């Protein structure tokens, strides 16, 4: 059952928040030992919040579609009185004295926070095989990674522990786990959702967004978390809108970009098949498929990588002499960032402005762009190289190749399940829109992926 369907049942008093929360906690207890999706379970606080939610509903006070719904947040969102580790041993005992804006607004919307999800160390990687808190496992095949860095959020939603978990995305960290775990992952426009009270990684690249089991649920969550926040310097004053698409939205006449270069060049054969099916589905709904040449996305990725390396190392510099407190992969990235001159960072930000203008040229010809989210499905835990179209490629670079540039541009993008590969592993379709076009990309996503995604047997 989707979040919105559950919300409707709650409002009709067919089910209580206390029952939903008990079911969520029970599912976590049964499934978490084999997935490690949830790092901290807040059982008592959740039960109390659920009782309060039920009392309010009984008193005629309904806070909205999240009222009484059990949710989780990635363990880099500050939660007052509950430890927030960022997946790092550096912060293993850090207990914030306030909530992140997103947590504050979710609670104000009546959501019941049942726990904090596991993640890649410091959100700096895509495996979520965390050296300090254990590897998060993909519910579809527990020998495989869930993606990352919001791997616990993807796995928790896929495994049916919660209907929604918040993630963060600096170079694909919401969309990659959405793709690998077969759920919906929305990265809103930079500035649309507050970053206040979250552990940063790359200040100019970090985005916050939900992972859900339906497109409409993602829209319902965005309705609650989007908006101006004076505590986030990048926050936009642009008015919010209703982001929940109709059940059967009209996309007739919309122009959907089909990349002629880069995005479909080197992808797994099953991903290619699923992409063709997605274009066909959109076409059958009346959308116009427009072939487009995209700018040099490999160059965009280079610039995005450089900016992230520099920003992350600058941020974590006070801790970099404590080498034994970091996993080997994260330490290697932090070392690289230290060795880049300041001039390279500034020049990367100068290139970024031009790239933003160059990519914006596409929007006169198309309304949104379809790409695969990842060129592969979920790799095995510990696998470092993937063979794609006969070529070996580093798993981390392959997983971020189609998503990283979108962070550089700050554009909204949603990953929706669009099929499975020969092993039954989920494939993700990425839909990218122009700045603040969240409602449009969710409308298109709902048209091509209208059903709630299934929960695997565990």
């Amino acid at each position, binding site marked *: 059952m989707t979040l919105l369907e559950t919300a409707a049942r709650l409002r009709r008093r067919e089910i209580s928040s206390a029952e939903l929360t008990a079911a969520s906690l029970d599912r976590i207890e049964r499934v978490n030992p084999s997935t490690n999706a949830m790092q901290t379970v807040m059982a008592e606080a959740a039960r109390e919040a659920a009782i309060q939610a039920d009392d309010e509903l009984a008193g005629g006070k309904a806070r909205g579609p999240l009222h009484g719904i059990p949710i989780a947040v990635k363990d880099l969102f500050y939660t007052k009185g509950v430890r927030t580790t960022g997946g790092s041993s550096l912060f293993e005992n850090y207990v914030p004295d306030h909530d992140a804006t997103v947590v504050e607004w979710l609670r104000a919307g009546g959501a019941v926070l049942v726990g904090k999800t596991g993640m890649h160390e410091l959100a700096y990687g895509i495996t979520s095989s965390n050296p300090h808190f254990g590897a998060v496992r993909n519910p579809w095949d527990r020998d495989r990674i869930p993606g990352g860095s919001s791997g616990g959020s993807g796995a928790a939603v896929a495994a049916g522990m919660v209907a929604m978990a918040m993630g963060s995305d600096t170079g694909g960290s919401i969309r990659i786990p959405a793709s690998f775990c077969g759920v919906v992952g929305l990265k809103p426009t930079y500035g649309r959702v507050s970053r206040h009270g979250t552990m940063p990684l790359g200040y100019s690249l970090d985005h916050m967004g939900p992972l859900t089991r339906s497109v409409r649920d993602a829209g319902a969550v965005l309705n609650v978390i989007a908006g101006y926040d004076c505590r986030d*310097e990048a926050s936009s004053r642009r008015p919010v809108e209703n982001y929940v698409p109709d059940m059967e939205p009209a996309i007739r006449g919309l122009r959907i970009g089909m990349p002629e270069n880069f995005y479909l060049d080197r992808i797994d054969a099953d991903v290619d098949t699923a992409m063709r099916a997605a274009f066909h589905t959109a076409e059958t709904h009346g959308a116009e498929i427009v072939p487009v040449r995209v700018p040099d996305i*490999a160059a965009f990725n*280079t610039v995005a990588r450089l900016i992230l390396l520099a920003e992350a190392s600058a941020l974590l510099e006070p801790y970099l002499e404590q080498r034994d407190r970091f996993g080997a992969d994260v330490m290697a990235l932090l*070392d*690289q960032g230290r*060795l880049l001159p300041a001039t390279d960072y500034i020049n990367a930000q*100068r*290139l970024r402005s031009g790239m933003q203008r160059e990519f914006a040229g596409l929007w006169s010809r198309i309304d949104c762009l379809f790409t695969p989210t990842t060129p592969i499905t979920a790799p095995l835990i510990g696998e470092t190289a993937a063979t794609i179209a006969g070529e070996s490629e580093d798993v981390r670079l392959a997983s971020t190749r189609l998503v990283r540039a979108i962070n550089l541009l700050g554009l909204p993008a949603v990953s929706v399940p669009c099929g499975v590969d020969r092993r039954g592993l989920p494939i993700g379709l990425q839909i990218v829109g122009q700045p603040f076009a969240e409602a449009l990309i969710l409308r298109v996503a709902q048209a091509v992926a209208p059903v709630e995604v299934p929960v695997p047997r565990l």
Partner: protein
Amino acid sequence: MSNELKKDWKKITRANGFSIPDSALDRIAQSLDSLETGFRPLARGLRQENEPATVFRCTVPGETPGEWEDAG
């Protein structure tokens, strides 16, 4: 890269006073070299009028950056 000197990451590390072990540098050298190969030609194409994407905004105390921007 062919016309450029390859960077010596170990010398850069020592000159900066970083305590990064040689073994760690050996592991990241290829990645840094590849970043150099991709980035240097892009940076050479920059012109004076290309401003960085991060912009400092001057505000008076108590004012929020962007406060006077149009919501549109």
